[in-house]
């Protein structure tokens, strides 16, 4: 759907493994996706499906046990996966913004929020101390913090969760990045605050042509706020399609399972069904090629063949040998 070259980010075959005492965890396996300019891609899936690991791998923030074992991530001419720590340090915050889960924990608790925003502006936008201070107040105003001049002196603990989240957004987008990675940006927020925070992100994306990766477990949020959805399961992207298409014609059994489990504004408890089974143990040596196979109701003998991503209709990719 996006013309080639209009992509901000193209991830190809990203694989990540974690070494643990109990064996190697194949956390991500050949994850590929693209994010277009001004586009919001939602990564959805259950906890443990690899959504956050994807974000951390792209930004070089995996913890010491984690290792990128393959793939590339081309971002405005650079490969994020091959960038040196020094290069990454100048990319993070300047060209890629990140919103972390749990804003209260991600902000520096002993630094006023205005200064935390000014830090980003001084480091990445090259502003002097005075200009950065004034610009930080302006950024607070942009994200809808009332009385920004006074609030700039507040510490994170003096603000509500919703306000901390807005500060987090202000920090992430302070240097007008080309790509924003938002990891569960609204978990723990009330729906009303969530709507306001998402509006701010959408406005900034539209104004600056910023691409967004929205990581969420909430399919309804993804439905409302993204142009594309990539569904993750146990380290695989199992389905990737334009949002409306994915919701109207889900092809992978796991996507269908997730949709069947999501409460909606209509329907009863009897209409909801859980996805059978749980995520497979990713330390296993005998992990089947399709990591959903053991939970799957549509399993066929062909499922033991190596996993392949097939484009069923233009722009609609599915990793399934027997799609619905």
């Amino acid at each position, binding site marked *: 759907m996006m013309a080639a070259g209009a992509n901000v980010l193209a991830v190809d075959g990203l694989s990540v493994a974690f070494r643990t005492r109990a064996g190697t965890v194949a956390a991500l396996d050949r994850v590929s996706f693209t994010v277009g300019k001004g586009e919001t891609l939602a990564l959805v899936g*259950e*906890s443990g499906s690899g959504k956050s690991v994807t974000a951390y791998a792209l930004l070089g923030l995996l913890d010491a046990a984690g290792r990128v074992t393959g793939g590339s991530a081309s971002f405005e001419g650079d490969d994020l996966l091959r960038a040196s720590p020094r290069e990454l340090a100048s990319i993070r915050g300047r060209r890629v913004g990140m919103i972390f889960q749990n804003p209260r924990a991600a902000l520096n608790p002993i630094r006023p929020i205005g200064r935390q925003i000014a830090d980003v502006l001084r480091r990445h936008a090259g502003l002097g101390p005075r200009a950065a201070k004034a610009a930080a107040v302006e950024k607070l105003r942009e994200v*809808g913090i*009332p009385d920004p001049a006074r609030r700039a002196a507040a510490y994170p603990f003096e603000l*509500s*969760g*919703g*306000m901390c989240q807005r500060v987090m957004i202000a920090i992430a987008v302070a240097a007008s990045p080309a790509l924003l990675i938002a990891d569960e940006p609204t978990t723990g927020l*009330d*729906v*009303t*605050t*969530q*709507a*306001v925070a998402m*509006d701010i992100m959408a406005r900034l994306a539209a104004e600056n042509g910023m691409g967004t990766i929205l990581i969420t*477990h*909430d*399919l*309804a*949020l993804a*439905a*409302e*706020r993204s142009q594309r959805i990539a569904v993750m399961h146990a380290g695989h992207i199992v389905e990737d399609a334009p*949002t*409306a298409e994915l*919701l109207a014609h889900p092809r992978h059994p796991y996507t269908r*399972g*997730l*949709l069947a*489990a*999501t*409460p*909606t*504004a209509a329907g*009863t*408890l009897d209409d*909801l*069904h*859980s*996805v059978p089974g*749980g995520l497979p143990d990713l330390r296993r040596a005998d992990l089947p090629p399709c990591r959903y196979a053991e939970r799957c109701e549509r399993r066929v003998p062909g499922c033991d063949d190596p996993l392949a991503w097939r484009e069923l209709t233009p722009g609609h990719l599915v990793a399934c040998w027997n799609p619905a």
Partner: protein
Amino acid sequence: MEHPPLLDVAELCKRFPIGRRSWRKGTPAPMVHAVDDVSLVVQRGETLGLVGESGCGKSTLARLLARLSDATEGSIRFAGRELTELPASKFARDPDRARIQIVFQDAGESINPRFTAYDAIADALHHLKGFSGSALRAQVDEAAELCGLPLALWERFPHQLSGGQRARVGIARAIALRPELLILDEPTAALDVSVQVTILKLLERLKTQLGISYIFVSHDLNVVRLLCDRVVVMYLGRIVEVGPAQAVFDAPLHPYTRGLVAAVPRLDGVRSATPRLSGDPRSPIDPDPNACRFHGRCPIGTDRCTAAMPALRSFPDRREVACHFAVEG
């Protein structure tokens, strides 16, 4: 006339002092009005939903109703008995303790980490009902089976259980006492959708099987709608709207409920045309007793809302709304 309600709460208030009384001026300490003038009833076999934003007092109310903390004012009548006369510390050893139970938000945090699943379920049975030995084992066995907890998990500690299994332990230890009223404080907030479905279905089955009444606290309106007969919407400590869950969510009468319902993301991606609730709730510290708490954030408020606190008014279909401007939809 209906049967007498299982729970009848009248004019319940909970205020927390913050800071200290100034000894020089002698002015009283400022108070957080966490729950203010709340009246509600729960019928036998009914599920009552309690919704609102964080900080609206729903968890404080749940703790008051579970008799884990003492109300500042007001009455809680449970099966005809006035419970507020008894301090929470005494109620812990009262025979009625077993009749009102609570399931906490995150079972991983609320179960003693050094208790196995078996211990967690057995503890209350032993202390409140006096079971021991094989009788205790039989009771635990029954509760675990009702909640779908296989025997293999009994000797596991909370950190060795998955989120769904922990939720089952939390529910099993509450229903083991055969309560008549079960208070559920966001029981599925920490769970994935797929696990959430199984827990919701479990709760629905237990309700009919054991005839328990539920008070279901949640911020997820879609979940409340699935499980609850009636719903109470709270804002800054006060009830703003009460009514049958389906009716309240389909055609909310209070401007706050309208904003809340409109903010819920929908799977069909259709965004509501109702304007966003902007801003944050005002401070719950010593609020103006003569002003609507929602004023300032309300899209339709007028000067009248700063002069008179709207009381709950009755509407058809057993609905009540606290707004000067609410009209039948």
